[in-house]
């Protein structure tokens, strides 16, 4: 096993990896940008190396600086986390060329699965079902319009190197096609350094089901059941769970077998995820393979008991998988909410600033993987993920009430968060019934229809305001800067804010 590894990442996932390594007596090397000098991952690692300025293009995305830190620190292997360089085949190759081990899949698999068009070809050849659409990249223009017409509207524009909803657009009518393709292409260029996009049939009311895989370097591949990730906003997952409320044991075996077939088709090893869409008739279609650890991996960990990051280390170190397919069971139910620093009342725009008060939830069944701390800054430079909040229960309904309780317990001031929005989701009758698809949020939570918070708390708010004023009549209640939200400067009278579903 490795003695020392470098983590080419930051925030909660870097902390997650440090924890697994520490439990295996592996020393960790953090890398940090200017903005992250005091970040949790910098402080919790055994070693820490500065790799540049705050923008990730000048630090976390600079391969040479990361390899340089690895050499200096004597790390033997590099874990890329998710995001940044995690799905960059050039990085994986550069790590190997430097004589180090990449804790992830083989570079060729990253490359093949990274180009969505190439991935589709491989899956078709292997007999894994895919959605109809183009097989290669296409420019905005008359030809694209023709193909979209053939496939049938609505269509989905996706970045060839995409992931996480970036560079993705749903197009309902031919009129919007070119503008959407241009915008998607720009976003793709900015996010992935590759403006190429392609067109896929947009399924109506599908569920997003993905299968977690583990494969060692000796051809042993197992699946760790599915995750249900249909609760998405702008193609970004918000709430994930395991198992899916609609997958039967039979279907689980089928979709698990398809995922294993997909992994074998690209010579995969290490941890990976095959994403499928499930239509209303329970047909499933391959959409892509994520060749890395995923944000939502804890729901699988909490229902199987398997620590995925530890398995990644073991596989990368050349160990054989000791878990057999029949060892993988389902223990209870787990739900994850991605808690973001974003303002649900201001179009979910990222909310940056200093975390002034932080009370994370805890207690039975709760796991909160966080990368922030009181007094720390949530900056413009990186994804505004505050934490992955996970609730486990003996069954789905217990997991839901625990998540609700944890969200109610969770207090953050200084930045706005999507916690009130997550609460609305897990309290929604359709969510509780398990009756939803990927349109759940857009169907039930049209932002422009959201009403202010409950009226019955107004009296309490009024009393608190008067008492605070009374206690410090001529001075400032707190030294804090007023939060100017730009679009709506502070009104000159009181108002009720908050969220309520239609």
């Amino acid at each position, binding site marked *: 096993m490795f003695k020392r590894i470098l983590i080419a990442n930051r925030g909660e996932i870097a902390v997650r990896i440090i924890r697994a390594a520490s439990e295996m007596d592996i020393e960790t090397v953090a890398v940090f940008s200017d903005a992250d000098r005091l970040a949790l991952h910098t402080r919790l690692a055994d070693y820490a190396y500065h790799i540049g300025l705050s923008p990730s293009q000048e630090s976390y995305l600079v391969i040479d600086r990361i390899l340089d830190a690895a050499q200096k620190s004597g790390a033997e292997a590099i874990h890329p986390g998710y995001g940044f360089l995690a799905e960059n085949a050039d990085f994986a190759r550069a790590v190997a060329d430097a004589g180090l081990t990449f804790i992830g899949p083989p570079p060729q698999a990253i490359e093949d699965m990274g180009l969505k068009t190439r991935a589709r070809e491989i899956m078709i050849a292997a007999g894994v079902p895919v959605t109809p659409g183009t097989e290669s990249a296409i420019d905005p223009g008359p030809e694209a319009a023709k193909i979209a017409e053939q496939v049938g509207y609505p269509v989905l524009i996706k970045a060839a190197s995409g992931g996480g909803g*970036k560079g993705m657009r749903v197009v309902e009518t031919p009129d919007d096609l070119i503008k959407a393709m241009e*915008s998607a292409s720009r976003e793709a260029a900015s996010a992935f350094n590759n403006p190429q996009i392609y067109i896929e049939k947009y399924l109506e009311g599908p569920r997003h089901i993905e299968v977690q895989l583990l494969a060692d370097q000796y051809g042993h591949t197992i699946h760790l059941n599915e995750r249900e990730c249909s609760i998405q906003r702008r193609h970004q997952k918000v709430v994930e769970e395991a198992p899916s409320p609609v997958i039967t044991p039979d279907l689980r075996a089928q979709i698990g077998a398809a995922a294993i077939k997909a992994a074998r088709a690209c010579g995969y090893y290490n941890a990976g995820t095959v994403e499928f869409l499930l239509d209303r008739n329970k047909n499933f279609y391959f959409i892509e393979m994520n060749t890395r650890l995923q944000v939502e991996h804890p729901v699988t960990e909490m229902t199987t008991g398997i620590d995925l990051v530890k398995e990644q280390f073991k596989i990368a170190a050349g160990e054989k998988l000791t878990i057999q397919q029949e060892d993988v069971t389902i223990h209870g139910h787990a739900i994850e909410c991605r808690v973001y620093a974003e303002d649900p009342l201001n179009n979910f725009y990222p909310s940056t600033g200093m975390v002034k008060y932080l009370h994370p939830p805890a207690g039975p069944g709760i796991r909160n993987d966080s990368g922030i701390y009181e007094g720390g800054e949530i900056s413009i430079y990186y994804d505004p993920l505050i934490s992955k909040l996970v609730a486990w229960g003996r069954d789905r309904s217990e997991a839901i009430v625990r998540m609700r309780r944890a969200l109610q317990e969770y207090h953050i001031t200084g930045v706005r968060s999507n916690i009130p929005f997550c609460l609305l989701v897990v309290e929604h009758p359709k969510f509780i019934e398990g009756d939803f698809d990927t349109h759940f949020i857009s169907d039930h939570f049209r932002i422009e229809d959201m009403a202010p918070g409950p009226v019955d708390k107004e009296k309490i708010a009024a009393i608190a305001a008067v008492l*605070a004023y009374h206690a410090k009549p001529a001075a400032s209640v707190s030294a804090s800067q007023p*939060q100017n939200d730009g679009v709506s400067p502070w009104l000159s009278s009181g108002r009720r804010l908050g969220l309520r579903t239609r």
Partner: protein
Amino acid sequence: MKYQAVIDDQKFEVQIIDEHTLTVNGEESSINFRQGQKPEHFSLILDGQSHQVWIEECQPCRDGKPSIVRIHLHGFDYEVQVDTERSLKLREFVGTSSSSEVAGQINAPMPGLVVKVLVENGQEVKKGDGVIIVEAMKMENEIKSPIDGIVSEIHVQNRQAVEKGETLIIIG
């Protein structure tokens, strides 16, 4: 001591009798109000009900002007305008201070990069039309016009970095 607190169209007349008692619109309540672990954190026990409250002052109180306080309570936010008898009287006399808000002023909702200005000076726009695309954390956000009007000022250009709250475009 008498106060008036306003949230939207709701008015509360709050009279503080003593440390443990106040009336709201004439109705008596028992209170136990204590600052917590951080300057903006408070615990309020109101007629036996326990509430955690986070309080930020949005608009500091000055003589004769109301104070606006942002209250975070059970996951929701309320902005409460607090007046004393004196500030109410002064306002009646001088009139409410005019809002600094300009209806058609579009400010950056977050720090980011201007990807594309979608309108030109003098162009007519309708409420809801996209006027500018700002990218933050790799996501493009199209900002829409809050009103019908004509573009009167454009303060930024493509690829320009902007701070949160910076004025981008004014629709006249």
